[in-house]
């Protein structure tokens, strides 16, 4: 019995209806929910226990964050389109949409960099108070997730020709799993934006 007999890499399991990698991605996302869940709980406990807590919009740049929200939502759409292109067997379209996704993610990071450097310029650091502490921790960790997504998506883009030629089904499955991750990262931002900037 050889290792090539590891089943359900390309075809979904008849009972669960999904492939190994998709199940693994959902499980991984469950850990991510618990990670950010823990941090959000910390945020709630710190805020409830604080005698006064600054209003996010007084210190943070709401227009830039709104723009960033739009950037991430559009990148989610292009991510779906890149997967749909593979499902419709069009590699050039996949490359176009995947490049767009990566570029939009970079735009997000650039805007985030502008926000961060402005805060540092005003001498607002994580140590200033717990509001900025949790702001930098949550957005920093989210930024690391964005960077992780960029790295993985770039890898898929650079190896697309080979993977598509050799294992088209497996490749499509991988892009779908990467898409699940990317939507999750977007979703975290959808929570972060109102919690930190608006409330």
């Amino acid at each position, binding site marked *: *019995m*050889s290792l090539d007999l590891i089943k359900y890499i390309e075809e979904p399991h008849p009972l669960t209806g999904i492939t190994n990698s998709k199940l693994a991605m959902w499980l*991984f996302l*469950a850990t991510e929910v618990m990670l950010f869940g823990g941090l959000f709980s*910390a945020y709630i406990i710190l805020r409830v226990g*604080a005698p006064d807590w600054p209003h996010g919009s007084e210190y943070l740049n709401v227009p830039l964050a709104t723009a960033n929200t739009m950037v991430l939502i559009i990148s989610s759409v292009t991510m779906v389109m890149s997967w749909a292109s593979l499902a419709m067997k069009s590699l050039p379209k996949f490359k176009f949409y995947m490049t767009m996704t990566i570029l939009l993610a970079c735009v997000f990071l650039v805007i985030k960099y502008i926000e961060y450097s402005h805060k540092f310029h005003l001498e607002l650091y994580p*140590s200033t108070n717990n509001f900025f*502490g949790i702001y930098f*921790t949550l957005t920093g960790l989210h930024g690391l997730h964005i960077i992780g997504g960029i790295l993985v998506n770039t890898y898929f883009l650079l190896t697309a020709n080979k993977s598509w030629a050799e294992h088209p089904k497996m490749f499509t499955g991988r892009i779908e799993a990467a898409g699940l991750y990317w939507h999750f990262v977007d979703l975290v931002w959808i929570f972060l934006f109102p919690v930190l900037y608006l409330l």
Partner: protein
Amino acid sequence: MSQDHHHQELGFIQKYIFSVDHKVIGVQYGVTALIFLFLGFCMMMLMRWQLAYPGEEVPILGGLLGSGWLPDFMSAGDVDASTYNTLGAMHGTVMIFLGVVPLGVGAFGNYLVPLQVGAPDMAFPKLNAASYWTYFAGGVVMMLGFFMPGGAANSGWTSYPPLSIFASNGQTVWLVGMVLLITSSLLGSVNIIVTIIQLRAPGLSFFKLPFFVWAQLVTSFILLLAFPPLEAAGVLQLMDRVAGTSFFLPTGLVQSNMPLEIAGGGNSLLWQHLFWFLAHPEVYVLILPAIGIVTEIVVNNTRKPLYGYKTLVYSGIFLGFMSFLVWAHHMFMTGMGETMSDFFQVTTMIISIPSVVVLTVLIITLWGGSIRFNVPMLFAVAFLPMFAIGGLTGLPLGLTASDIYFHDTYYVIGHFHYVVAPGTLFALFAGIYYWYPKVVGRKMSSFWGKIHFWGSLISINLVFFPMLLQGISGLNRRMYDPTFYEHGASIQSLNVIISYAAWALGLVQLIFILNFFLSIKFGKKVGDNPWQATTLEWATPTPPPHGNFLSEPTVYHGPYEYSVPGRTEDYLPQHVQA
């Protein structure tokens, strides 16, 4: 995966070091974890010296370790207060996160789950290797703390702030090591869950799975959901230490009569909640694989079907679920409020029910069997009363009224060590003796195995039972000089007895280590199924080749078909059509 990958002869490094074969990775996990267990044991021996003979120089080792190559560690040759704190924190961390869990989940889970579900490997072999190497890196990083000024982490394995925020840099290294270990656990548990759900052999429905696989499934879900909040807490504590935030630091802290220059406004209890949200489920991560191993061995050696298979499975699932709802019973004394304490007392009493059900099922399984008392069975049977003592001594700690008295005494130490050391560790020893023939092709010596068993059983009880008595007498834990207070000095003789027992326990383990290595070469050769067992791992060649089964097995029966009427043999393997 390349098509002709398995036809090539692999070099030594690819085959044994950077292997992606779940069995090699399982053995790597096992050997590394045993080395860490030994290290953790040695740290405990140094602490035992100090507890038995406070302030006296450690013979031989005092000169070796005190010569200064480990900064701030036993600098005067004796176990001074700061060294004692370091040893206490690192003993706990090493034993739990680098020893027992990697042995129970990493080694046994990795080696056995794919075999018992009839799969050629784990679902993600490369991820599996990544999981091992992340664990290895986490262990090495944590040990680096010993070589730093101020020594390794010294704020207890629980790392409570504010103490841990101002501890030496060993604590930062501890946090980085923990993040690596958590990552490793998450990779491993995703892999195990996917393997169990997706890769079961044809015919192997969920209720035909050996209980060991169920235990690994529940354990993996606990790891998956409980570890990330600790990762979150670790990130926050790292920020407190490195970036100067005050997540865990309340306003108005004073150090050496100077007010601290921090923003303040943090919450120390927040750490405890996040920490115990992992660390209580962690208890079940320790105990569930152990129960799984004991079940396999008890059923195999009583030669009759398991009594109440489904009861056991549902209890295991219920244990896993409830383990998320009891964490704050570690925090009764923190002043978190009566409502909270009431809730967690109730859930704590509820979780004891499935634990008792599990023990009852295993004890009734023994009833009326023709029991074979081989070495694995001795350890497995000893697990039952040891785990029972550990569990029952926990009840007074789960009720606030008695916890006020027992809290932070040696009673707590005796209690949880009964669960983990003569409990879980005995089960892991049982597992090593039981599956060793499958891994190596030879049995470990049963004569020396029996000496190891009886020596361990007697000395380990002489170590931990007196601790319960010390606790009842009110002796405080975490004290580096137990004779400092009168009530401690009056029962100091118990500490001397415990230390002698601990050194005897160490000597007996040397027999195990010798037996373990010498049997690779000199053990008695055995066939593919030396214990006449029914589950799928015994249907492979010995040792199983890369890819495990010669052809994909089909499963026809439940896992424990022993003494089936009308058969000449007293067992019916899962893959044999009756």
